[in-house]
């Protein structure tokens, strides 16, 4: 016993180092698996508060470009609204069908990140605004990511620029679907893998979300095909997708809640 205590006292520096280094390794490994980062994330009171006050200052600098983006979107939505009013007369609508499937919330990105291999964003909405895990996040131009951790007022979002992110996406013209991933290199491009060889891919095709998960509705824009090649097994295409969003400068985003998500998940988990 005496010897054990002596050993601990003699090597206390090394043991402490081992303990703390092991702890850091544990945290690091946790972030590499989806939904596992338990303690260390930026959606907490301290870091969220600091980023929020920084964002209050920073957001003044690109007010003009963000305003232009928003007014552009308003214009597009107005066109849609006008067109749907014309159609509304001629279509019979059952009032039972008026249930909203997707709910939208607005939020601001208060911490953007794109230079690491696993990028996580922080937004200024949290549980108090009924934002929960696995809600989709999009901007006016396209897809941004998926909500991971939430605190009372903030949420951490797994960006599409994250090597662990897997989102179902498809070719707009032909419904062939695959998985949207990121290779960790350029923040302008994502990779769409597992598109069957038979699919008619060509340069400039539009890629949208497929709506096969309960997170994103079908048809949220992702990007256009920059180039593509067959993978090693020569059965599937690997497509380099140029994103519509400039991920290095996003601020105003929408959070999407699928009202039927619970129902869909219950159905799937019963099988």
């Amino acid at each position, binding site marked *: 016993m005496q010897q054990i205590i002596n050993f601990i006292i003699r090597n206390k520096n090394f043991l402490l180092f081992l303990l703390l280094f092991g702890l850091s390794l544990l*945290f690091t490994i946790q972030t590499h698996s989806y939904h596992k980062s338990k303690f260390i994330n*930026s959606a907490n009171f301290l870091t969220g508060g600091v980023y929020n006050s920084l964002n209050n200052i920073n957001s003044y600098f690109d007010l003009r470009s963000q305003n232009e983006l928003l007014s552009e979107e308003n214009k597009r939505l107005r066109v849609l609204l006008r067109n749907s009013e014309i159609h509304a007369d001629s279509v019979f609508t059952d009032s039972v069908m008026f249930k909203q499937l997707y709910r939208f919330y607005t939020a601001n990105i208060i911490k953007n990140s794109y230079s690491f291999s696993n990028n996580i964003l922080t937004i200024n909405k949290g549980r108090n605004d009924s934002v929960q895990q696995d809600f989709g996040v999009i901007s006016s131009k396209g897809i941004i990511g998926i909500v991971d951790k939430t605190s009372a007022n903030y949420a951490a979002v797994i960006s599409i620029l994250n090597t662990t992110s897997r989102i179902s996406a498809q070719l707009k013209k032909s419904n062939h679907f695959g998985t949207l991933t990121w290779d960790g290199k350029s923040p302008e491009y994502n990779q769409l893998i597992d598109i069957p060889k038979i699919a008619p891919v060509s340069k400039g095709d539009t890629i949208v979300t497929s709506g096969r998960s309960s997170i994103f509705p079908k048809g949220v824009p992702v990007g256009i095909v920059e180039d593509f090649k067959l993978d090693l097994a020569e059965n599937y295409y690997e497509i380099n997708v140029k994103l519509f969003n400039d991920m290095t400068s996003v601020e105003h985003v929408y959070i999407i809640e699928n009202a039927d998500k619970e129902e869909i998940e219950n159905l799937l988990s019963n099988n």
Partner: protein
Amino acid sequence: MNSIFSIHTVRFIALVFVQVLILNHINFLGYINPYIYILFIALFPVKNNRIILILLSFLLGITIDMFLDTGGIHAGASVLIAYARPVILKSSFGTVYEHQSVKFNTVDFGSKLTYFTFLTVLHHFVLFTLEIFSISKIILIFQKTLFSSIFTILLSVVVTIIFSRKPK
């Protein structure tokens, strides 16, 4: 003792804020950022207890990690350099360190630069290895280590020159 304590508390907080609010947004050429918060570990008084330094480094690293959502990579790298610091001190300052009389304001520039270089390269290498976490991307790890180290060392030297008090 009290003034040393307060100096290091201020330094700790200031470095975290500068790192998180300014330096992480530089993204020179897309991915090169300096990480000068390790100055806290580099300039920690030599005579003080090693246990305190290791614990404080962990705290520093985990704070940065919390802001950047990076798990524990900064904590791991910081703890490692805090543990390895005596070896690096010995190899860069030689006999001055043996006599326990290193004062960072008074040592000559050459050995200070060697000291920073060793510490920074070790820290960045561990940092990017943990961040990328894949042996197949070893080239990317070396590339990031090299460029970020140059940036960090330059900035560290500039900061220490600006904030150093003239030896009387």
